[in-house]
């Protein structure tokens, strides 16, 4: 871990609707994640964790507040300060509760496509995709379509896809929800490894309290507010 910030949010808030129908999903959410740091965001359903993650992930713009990635102001309130799509492509890796793989691409192609979109040649992309699948233990399923993979295998392919472009930040929303405890632990360890070895800042939204020891910091979210939490004893 170094001291430079991978992610910094300042006073993020998200309000849906207005007047009587106004719903505050997130308010004044501020969080800092350093390069090489793995952060867990805990909290009950509906507390605003996913809203926070999609705001940081440049998918769902906040109503107010700032998102700073690698020191660059990317979102100022709902206003994009740069090309969000290019930023997502280069700097962010996503892993979701559902694996979200493209159904008509094989496992290796699902990993390869994100590198191809980022301008990596087909040969180099395929080699790296195979390396990542190998690292995640699904190399033998490289030629299979997502429908032919188990939930755990799909999730590992999704992790490989998130890592493919060596992003500076990785955002994971309940990545172990579809996995058994063993596989869940493996995925969490993998995030920690990626953060520590490649210097990526990682935020993982999770309900899984069995693997909290792998995280460098814990945060808890409740009623749209973020507060720092301590490691359980």
């Amino acid at each position, binding site marked *: 871990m170094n001291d430079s910030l991978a992610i910094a949010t300042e006073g993020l808030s998200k309000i849906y609707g207005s007047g009587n129908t106004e719903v505050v999903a997130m308010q004044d959410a501020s969080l800092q994640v350093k390069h090489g740091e793995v952060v867990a965001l805990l909290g009950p359903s509906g507390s605003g964790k996913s809203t926070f993650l*999609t705001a940081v992930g440049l*998918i*769902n713009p906040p109503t107010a507040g700032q998102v700073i990635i690698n020191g660059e102001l990317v979102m100022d309130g709902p206003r994009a300060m740069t090309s969000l799509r290019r930023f*997502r*492509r280069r700097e962010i890796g996503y892993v979701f509760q559902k694996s979200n793989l*493209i159904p*008509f*691409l094989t496992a290796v192609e699902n990993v390869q496509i*994100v590198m191809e979109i980022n301008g990596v040649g087909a040969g180099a992309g395929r080699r790296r995709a195979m390396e990542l699948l190998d690292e995640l233990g699904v190399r033998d399923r490289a030629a299979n379509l997502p429908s032919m993979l188990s939930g755990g295998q799909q999730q590992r392919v999704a992790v490989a896809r998130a890592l493919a472009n060596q992003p500076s930040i990785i955002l994971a929303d309940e990545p172990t929800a579809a996995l058994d405890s063993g596989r869940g632990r493996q995925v969490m360890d993998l995030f920690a490894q990626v953060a520590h070895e490649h210097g990526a800042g990682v935020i993982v939204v999770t309900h899984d309290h069995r693997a909290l020891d792998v995280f460098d910091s814990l945060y808890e979210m409740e009623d749209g507010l973020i507060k720092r939490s301590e490691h359980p004893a």
Partner: protein
Amino acid sequence: MNLAAKDIRHNVGRFLLTTIGIGMLLMVVMGMGGIYRGIVEDATMLVDEVGADLWVVQRDTRGPFAEISRVPSNMVHRVAAVPGVKDAREFLFHTIQREHRGRALRIAILGLSWPTDKGGWVELTEGRALTQSHFEMIADQSLGLRLGERIKLGKENYEVVGITKSMISAAGDGLAFFTVADAQAIQFDTPGEAVRLERAAREIRGANSELGAKLPVLLEQASKSNAEIPALAPPRISAVMASIEAGVNPEEVIANMSGWSDVSVFTRQGQRELLLKGSVEKVKKQIGLFRVLLTIIAAIIMALILYTLTLDKIHTIALLKLIGAPNSRILGLIMQESLFIGVLGYGIAYLLGQRIFPNFPRRVILTNDDLLQLGVIVIVISVLASFLGIWKALRVSPNEALS
């Protein structure tokens, strides 16, 4: 990585079914154009095949194809005597409908000017041209008559000695070639009782007239056949066809006949225009409008199919946006699938048409120009049809990948 190819391969059955459906729709559009070409070809085929330079028809009519024309048989000698005319032939054309082997048989009868014209110019697929002045015929295969078969028309039996292919009248009836005399016999065939009644009527008319009283010998003639009575005109023909000597301007020959007040003269091109501007023009407009409608329907159906296929891929499109895929990549996916469906559908339309169109009762002629034109239209339709899907894809938020 070609996403469209991957998607199509993954959903190959669905894409094939969709493409076959579009292909069949395009086949109908293609067939409409082919039917129009067939009608034009059939309408002008006879004029072109006969090869006459001039057509001499009844005054102020547009005969013999666009309307009925009647000229006396001896007109052929008058025309042949005009300076610049190489030869003149009788032309007789009419359509009959008879029962044959339990089904209605429509025959477009064409009289050949025997012995100068034995049908040597008629392209035969089987058999031979006429070799005798009576009781032989050449039939188009669309009539369903076999070589050597005999068919009773009027009071006589006629033997099929030659078979042609695609010799059709403007109305779509198969042509049969007879000598003019046989064609007249078929056209003017009168039952014996009607002949007897007419002869009796002649006698009564003669007996009641002053002329009959003054010249009783006329009454004796009344019971004879038409051919034996000089005062009665011989059966008429439809037109006289003339060929012009080499180097002679047809307009000069027409000018020579301009003083004849009982006939009108048309060039071959004039005869073609009469046919094309008459009934064929209405058919052309009808089929043209129908073709435009079908093309619009095909475009709408393709657009809806593409839109539905895009809706099925909304999640994937959102995911592609989420991982930073540029719009061009996503639009390319939709556009390529649209073009795939259009181009493959066109190929299916062509292949199916090649097998199905020959079984149509009328000729369906696919010309290269028409095929090329439809090909361009299909590409334009494919591009336009994809716009609806593209419009939808552009509105997809990457957020939808998480839903």
